[in-house]
């Protein structure tokens, strides 16, 4: 029974048609900055280096700005139009990749009263996916970088990547410090 469950679990993994989806976030900040005194911010226009129509458009920029704005407000910061303590901007790039996927045949072992069988594998097949890199930068009033969040995400298509990016921005900014560390 355990062997059969193991085999079925292997089959589940091998028949998955989705590429390996990965997401990786990293945050760095200036430890010498007292973030507790930096309570206001302004958004600067982001940079997008993508040819995908689902990403390179004003509505996507608006969605990203709204996500960044909303998350910073949750952190207790206030958006101002003049003399902000912090200036926030984002940049995004993406690239399309192709890998080769092979599925080996899976042997379902014999069980008492039941003969085992072999689930045939599949030959080399292409696996297309897109990797996007989102960078959110926060500068102080002097123009010095005080905080950077980077999120690298792999999705099977451009629309899925576009849909996930505003959530990724929120995840990054949830780690924005609000007091001196």
């Amino acid at each position, binding site marked *: 029974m355990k062997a059969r469950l193991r085999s*079925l679990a292997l*089959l*589940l993994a091998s*028949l*998955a*048609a*989705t590429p390996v989806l990965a997401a990786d976030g990293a945050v760095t900040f200036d430890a010498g900055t007292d973030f507790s005194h930096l309570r206001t911010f302004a958004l600067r226009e982001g940079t997008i280096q993508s040819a*995908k*129509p*689902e990403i390179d*458009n*004003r*509505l*996507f920029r*608006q*969605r990203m700005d*709204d996500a960044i704005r909303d998350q910073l407000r949750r952190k207790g910061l206030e958006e101002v139009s003049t003399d902000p303590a912090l200036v926030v901007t984002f940049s995004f790039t993406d690239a399309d990749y*192709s890998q*080769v*996927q*092979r599925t080996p045949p899976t042997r379902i072992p014999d069980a008492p*009263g*039941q003969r085992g069988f072999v*689930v045939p594998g599949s*030959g*080399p*097949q*292409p696996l*297309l996916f897109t990797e996007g890199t989102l960078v959110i930068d926060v500068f102080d009033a002097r123009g010095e970088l005080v905080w950077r969040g980077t999120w690298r995400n792999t999705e*099977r*298509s*451009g*629309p*899925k990547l*576009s*849909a996930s990016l505003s959530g990724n921005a929120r995840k990054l900014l949830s780690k924005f410090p609000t007091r001196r560390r």
Partner: protein
Amino acid sequence: MRPGDLRCRRECYYFKQMRGATFLLALLLWAAAAAAGDYVVDLDRHLDFKAIRTFTLRGAHIAIDRPEINNPLIIERTTAAVRAALLARGLQEVAEGADLRVDWSLRGQSFFVNEWGHAIPLIDGVNRTPFQPRRGRRGGPDSFTEGTLVIDMTQISSGLLVWRGVHRERQREVAGIADKLPAYAKKMLARYPAVKK
């Protein structure tokens, strides 16, 4: 019927086979769904869509140079699907003085899959990668096309893009994309904010 009975063994065997087959079938269906097309819709979050009542259909463009998809019949059928979906959302089509201008376009990228499983993008239907000899398809290896349908809505008064839907799908045959264009349009336009009458 006790577990040791011959009839039980036979029926229990068939039950187990059917249960396993059902599980495998469910798994394959899930895998197929996972491999289906994806779409995303973005709209202007600062615009009051209740004030938008009318639209006009303008651009329809197919940038795939294949006769089974780039023809007036497919363009007309897809445009009709876009029109029907917007009318179903409560908008009204007018010839002049509309609030929205609606355009749609289809672009595509074909791939050639070589014997090692690598997907090589074709340019103008020909494999032009630097490390492969220039050759056409000889009917052996599989190939597929990724089609991208984009529907744009622009507010005429401001000239700004206020709604965009993008659908990407990979199909073995380009004709498969052509057949499904109305369904893609309908699915995306179902996310347009409905106008209450």
